[in-house]
């Protein structure tokens, strides 16, 4: 019947520390990776910015097109980070992998920050172009709903103190959100065409001519590396946090 035997991941005889083998290996890997990755990120960003500001100004939008070089990567990262959280959510729910909880929880604040920055830079770009900070443009609206989901996830982690349950609850919301995002994107596009004539300025201009495209790619890559660095650092912190609380509980119990 319920012969879903779950082999104990740890060897019973030795102390509990063996259970950390998996995360300990990750910690060593993270320590080695963070340094070079950080250098790569800053190098890419520096090159990207140089290229971005040396490229000719866009004839229509003037200097405000420079905002695109961070706004578009932020939008891309908002989606990319949510995707990594969705994969971690699968790891938590289906393979019950402890590192998956850690990865999802660590990526959450970073994703929320990038999404918020995407909205802020979008508004700052919209002001000179469309004369209004907030415009119910289809893409901005979808990113706004994504931001609401990020906030919902953070609320869950704040409301549920037991880390195991909070991770599972957040994983569920992440997956349901992931299923829903394409539907939201579609419905917002539909809603946008229904209520508003096609916006005059499309967000990324008629077509991005190569001189702008190349720095954009470099910037996007740079920010992605930055995310990886921050994510690894956040995961490391989360593992230390959980290890500390597990240790504290064990000490309490051994105290008898």
């Amino acid at each position, binding site marked *: 019947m319920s012969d879903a035997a779950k082999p104990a991941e740890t060897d019973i005889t030795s*102390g509990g520390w063996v259970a950390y083998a998996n995360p300990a290996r990750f910690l060593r890997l993270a320590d080695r990776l963070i340094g070079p990755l950080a250098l790569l990120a800053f190098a890419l960003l520096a090159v990207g910015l140089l290229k971005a500001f040396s490229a000719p100004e866009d004839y229509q939008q003037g200097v405000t097109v420079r905002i695109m070089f961070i706004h578009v990567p932020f939008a891309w990262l908002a989606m990319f980070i949510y995707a990594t959280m969705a994969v971690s959510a699968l790891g938590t729910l289906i393979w019950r992998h402890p590192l998956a909880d850690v990865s999802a929880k660590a990526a959450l604040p970073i994703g929320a920050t990038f999404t918020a920055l995407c909205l802020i830079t979008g508004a700052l770009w919209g002001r000179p172009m469309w004369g209004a900070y907030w415009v119910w443009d289809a893409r901005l609206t979808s990113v706004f709903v994504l931001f609401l989901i990020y906030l919902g996830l953070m609320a869950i982690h704040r409301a549920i103190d037991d880390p195991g349950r909070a991770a599972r609850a957040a994983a569920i919301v992440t997956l349901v959100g992931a299923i829903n995002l394409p539907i939201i994107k579609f419905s917002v596009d539909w809603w946008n065409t229904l209520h508003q004539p096609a916006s005059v300025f499309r967000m990324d201009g008629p077509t991005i001519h190569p001189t702008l495209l190349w720095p954009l790619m470099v910037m996007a890559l740079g920010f992605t590396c930055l995310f990886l660095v921050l994510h690894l650092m956040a995961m490391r912190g989360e593992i230390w946090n959980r290890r500390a609380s597990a240790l504290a509980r064990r000490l309490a119990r051994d105290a008898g």
Partner: protein
Amino acid sequence: MDSLPEHFEFVAASYAVSLVALGGLAAVIIIGARRARARVEALERGASSRAVDTGADRT
């Protein structure tokens, strides 16, 4: 450049906001990790001192 190009303040503002936000985020993460690590080491010292008398193994 004689005068700053039009709307320059928006470009500056968006870059400034991004820098501050990302800097703040990195700081929060780094400090959080350091504090957690310190807490673990403190607990380990606590455990090891008790280990002497209760014989609990500490690898």
